[in-house]
């Protein structure tokens, strides 16, 4: 099993070996490119699988068959849908702000790629290992607010604009408890590096020590990626599709890819921060453990989406400011006290 765990590392070392000096700039560059290509492939594959999975789970939840026509048990449905999107006409509304309108979906698609680049997928398997990984992740994921606002503003449509405004209000509010909930883990591990945080969880995952932070991050994470019951941004019963209303074809498809990419990224961060990342009992390689945990989190998110009705905007804000924010502050206080007592006991005992 150890060999399987180390297999990706050995492959990487072999590729570096091809360059003579394994730490030359060309070797580093090649490894970075390979890492980024793998992340892009991961996002596209994840979107293809997750969209189908979402429809299947939706069918299962509301007791329908779900897609079942194309291929074995409907497994080719998403591929057919993606091909159809490619063939659609690319319409830009006459009154739209063309530059902003066109660039917004690209930003939405680029963000999960950038965030997933710092996630440790397995032992030593971090595309880019930053010392300030958490900071980087939070900073990049916050940009998606801007992208949605750009899409909403650029479309020059009332539905889109309302959706964009909702996106700003909602995501900025939820950013705060989201960041505070991660602070507890940072206080315990004394590091911002995601790979070091995973290593610190070799004995016990932080969900046991930081249950409040886990719940807060889970809720705020769902709100951050605009999924039900917090999907006010694209509430189809009210504002048709929010910022995405005016988009067609591949541009709309990019939003879709971005949404599922973001979902994967949030699930990956939850796995890394609270569920021990790639660490797990030794009978499976680390990367399998990682994706298993990500899959469970994504399943939970889908389950919640299909079960709960949508929240109202004032309740949504109330939840963020009146419940999650105080709770996350309380969690920081408790964590600080816990660390203090722990160190005191160590000093007495030692």
């Amino acid at each position, binding site marked *: 099993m150890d060999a399987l765990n180390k297999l990706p590392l050995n492959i990487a070392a072999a590729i570096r070996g091809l360059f003579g000096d394994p730490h030359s700039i060309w070797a580093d560059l090649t490894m970075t490119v390979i890492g980024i290509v793998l992340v892009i492939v991961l996002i596209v594959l994840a979107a293809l699988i997750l969209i189908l999975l979402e429809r299947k789970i939706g069918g299962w939840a*509301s*007791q329908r068959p779900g897609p079942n026509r194309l291929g074995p048990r409907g497994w080719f449905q998403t591929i057919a849908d993606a091909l159809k999107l490619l063939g659609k006409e690319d319409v830009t509304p006459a009154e739209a702000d063309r530059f902003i309108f066109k660039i917004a979906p690209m930003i939405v698609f680029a963000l999960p790629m950038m965030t997933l680049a710092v996630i440790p997928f397995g032992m030593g398997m971090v595309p880019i290992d930053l010392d300030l990984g958490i900071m980087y992740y939070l900073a990049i994921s916050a940009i998606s607010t801007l992208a949605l606002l750009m899409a909403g503003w650029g479309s020059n449509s009332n539905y889109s604009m309302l959706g964009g405004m909702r996106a700003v209000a909602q995501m900025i509010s939820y950013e705060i408890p989201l960041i505070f909930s991660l602070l507890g883990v940072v206080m315990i591990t004394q590091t911002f590096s995601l790979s070091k945080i995973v290593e610190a969880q070799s004995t016990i995952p932080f969900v046991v020590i930081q249950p409040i932070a886990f719940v807060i991050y889970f809720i705020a994470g769902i709100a951050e990626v605009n999924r039900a019951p917090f999907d006010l941004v694209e509430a189809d019963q009210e504002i048709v599709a929010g910022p995405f209303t005016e988009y067609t074809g591949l541009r709309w498809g990019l939003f879709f890819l971005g949404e599922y990419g973001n979902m994967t990224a949030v699930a990956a961060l939850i796995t890394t921060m609270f569920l021990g990342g790639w660490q797990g009992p030794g009978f499976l390689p680390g990367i399998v453990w990682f994706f298993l945990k990500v899959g469970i989190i994504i399943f939970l998110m889908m389950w919640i989406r*299909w*079960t709960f009705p949508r929240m109202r905007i004032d*309740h949504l804000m109330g939840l963020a400011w009146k419940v999650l924010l105080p709770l996350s502050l309380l969690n920081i206080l408790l964590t600080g006290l816990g660390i203090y007592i722990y160190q005191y006991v160590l000093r007495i005992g030692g």
Partner: protein
Amino acid sequence: MTLERTEELALNLGPQHPSMHGVFRMVAHFDGEIITKIDPKIGYLHRGLEKLAESRTYAQFIPYTDRLDYLAAPHNNMAYVQAVEKLANIQIPERAEYLRVIFAELARIASHLVFIGSLALDMAGWTAWGYCFRDRERILDLFEMTAGSRLTVNAMRIGGFSQEVPDEFWPALKSFLDDLPEMLEEYQGIFYGNEIAMGRMKSVGILTKEDAANFSTTGPVLRASGVKHDLRKDAPYGIYDRFEFDVPVLYGCDSYDRGLIRLLEIKESAKIIRQAMRDIPEGPIMAKVPKVLKPPVGEVYHAVENPKGELGFYLVSDGSTKPARLRIRSATFINIQLLPAISPGWKIQDVIAIFATLDAVLGEVDK
């Protein structure tokens, strides 16, 4: 500092919009997220049914009534054929009366199931919607066994009932009624008991007793505002005076009570169907009605309590084979006039829910 006011926006919802029931259209004016004015537009489904009736014989018009409130076609049939029977003074056999009641109450359950499902769906509660439509399917199967059609059930005739129900109808009906309490518990659990759904509907969209009366609202919308008014009790038609059932009345006046009252009514309908199943006599299902029906000169108004409220047919006969005038008093046409009155001041999301609780069926509104 004074509160900054934003520019007022107008948002067009419908006739093709994910939240709209049928082809209703409204232009919502709002300030931020608060609705200031609702401008409803109807008529996208206008087919001129009242005028069409004047060029059809009395019997030929029955299938047109299916298309009024297409979620509860048996009620429309019943209201119309009973109006004609009243006009022509036709007595119908007992068994036909009971079959009519069973069909009407089944249609009430089916219509309320669609209501609960679409109310949930308007708040993105997909699963509750799936449950409701799954269970409604069994009622439609029952209709299909007898009438051949599922939605536009056209089983009632002037003078009785079109055909005898098949043998497999009764066991299927019984098993449906046996499973019903469990289904209702499911809806209660997944939708009515849900914290988010309660938060969105409790104390929202207040319709006071006075307003409800002034707008001549009928049906569950009125009963959820604390007025006990049900034609089945107050002006019994057919054989409704033989059954024992309660008329649920709620006093919350809000969206939640307007939603919940449908759940309670389903229980009462099930009670009526059970009694009808127990008491139904053997015998003919069709009275002797002349092939060419020429009712005496006169006029008649007959109203029944359909799932949405009072559905009335006003018929004028000039002694010929065709009605001289037909007027339809449909419940939702009057109920949705409440929307511009009670919506201002609530958020867009609330108004979507308020509209759903009025349970509009555009076939009945536009006629």
